[in-house]
């Protein structure tokens, strides 16, 4: 079965990982800008990172037949530095016309602070002004519920935000309902310990249905598994769910959401789907 990973940090992965993803049926992926594991010291650090996301990673992906898309921003953790954040946001237009840029992301909150909220609102303002889609990071562990509610408050406050063009990521059992009920897309990140497992993601699909729900691996530099989406596919198959339902979650939903971006020029793979794992 072909699938699309809507949230995976390939700058952290090896070329072997790209090849494994291709063998597992990954047809396309999207890579939001995120924290590198250390705070960058200047706007030039982000400029180089955005070049990596728009020049280097698409080539690495294309070498194994995967289509690479990306999102740009300064992440929630480094957003604590408001001055640097404003410099980065002001620099983003240099990259907005790059062919693999889908929008602004992953913006959001980390520890639910005043500075993070200010930078989140300024990113949203930028996205609205430039008619960009938005991909959102929600906090981890004990901060997730409050942070997700704060993010929804800020988005709902702004009548210019088209909710069908916003993906709220890392939802779990206690945050998926308010996100879907408000009309946003929701992403479940399959990630050990701090987020969701394939089995719990399958439970959430069974409870809420497939409408506006996606699954992703995050696949970053932390303990994570880049093939977590195929694990979800296997879990759904073992439970007896239909091919059509699984395909909707892992392939058709990302196509529908990303298809709202002018830069999403997806070409279905020309290898028969039966040839994938």
């Amino acid at each position, binding site marked *: 079965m072909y699938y699309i990973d809507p949230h995976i940090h390939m700058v952290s992965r090896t070329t072997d990982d790209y090849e494994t993803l291709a063998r597992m049926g990954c047809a396309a992926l999207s890579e939001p800008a995120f924290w590198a594991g250390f705070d960058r010291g200047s706007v030039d650090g982000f400029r180089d990172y955005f070049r990596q996301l728009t020049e280097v990673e698409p080539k690495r992906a294309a070498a194994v037949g995967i289509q690479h898309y990306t999102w740009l921003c300064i992440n929630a953790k480094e957003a604590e530095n408001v001055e640097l954040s404003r410099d980065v946001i002001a620099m983003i237009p240099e990259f907005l016309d790059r062919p693999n840029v889908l929008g602004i992301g992953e913006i959001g909150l980390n520890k*639910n*602070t*005043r500075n993070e*909220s*200010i930078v989140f*609102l300024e990113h*949203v*303002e930028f996205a*609205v002004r430039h008619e960009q889609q938005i991909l959102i990071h929600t906090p981890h*562990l*004990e*901060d*997730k*519920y*409050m942070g997700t*509610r*704060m993010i929804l*408050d*800020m988005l709902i*406050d*702004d*009548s*210019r*935000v088209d909710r069908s063009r916003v993906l709220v990521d890392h939802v*779990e*059992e*206690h945050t998926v309902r308010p996100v879907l009920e408000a009309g946003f897309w929701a992403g479940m990140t399959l990630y050990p310990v701090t987020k969701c497992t394939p089995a*719990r993601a399958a*439970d959430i*699909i*069974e*409870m*809420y*249905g*497939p409408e506006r729900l996606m699954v992703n691996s995050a696949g970053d530099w932390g303990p994570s598994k880049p093939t977590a989406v195929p694990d979800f596919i296997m879990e759904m198959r*073992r*439970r*007896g*769910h239909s091919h059509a339902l699984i395909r909707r979650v892992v392939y058709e939903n990302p196509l529908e959401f990303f298809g709202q971006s002018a830069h999403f020029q997806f070409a279905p793979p020309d290898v028969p789907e039966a040839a994938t794992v």
Partner: protein
Amino acid sequence: MPVPMTAPKVLDREFFEIRAKLLEIAASFDRLDRGAGTVEGDPRMSLIREALDVLRSDEPDRAEAIQMIFSRQYAADWRKSLKVVPPKG
């Protein structure tokens, strides 16, 4: 949405997994007992005990209930306390 697996099938499939997870939790508590010092006053132990009570209950949506036990509460007046001005849109 229809769920393909019946409850008996779920139990057949997950019995050993549930057993293994319960043993892991039991072993963690034993490890806490064997360790020097005490964690009795640690608020995290209260959260764990509260979560165990949810597991023993017959209420639905236990996963969501346990998530909420380990979550900070939502404060609707957060904009005021953080002095964040809403957008003009």
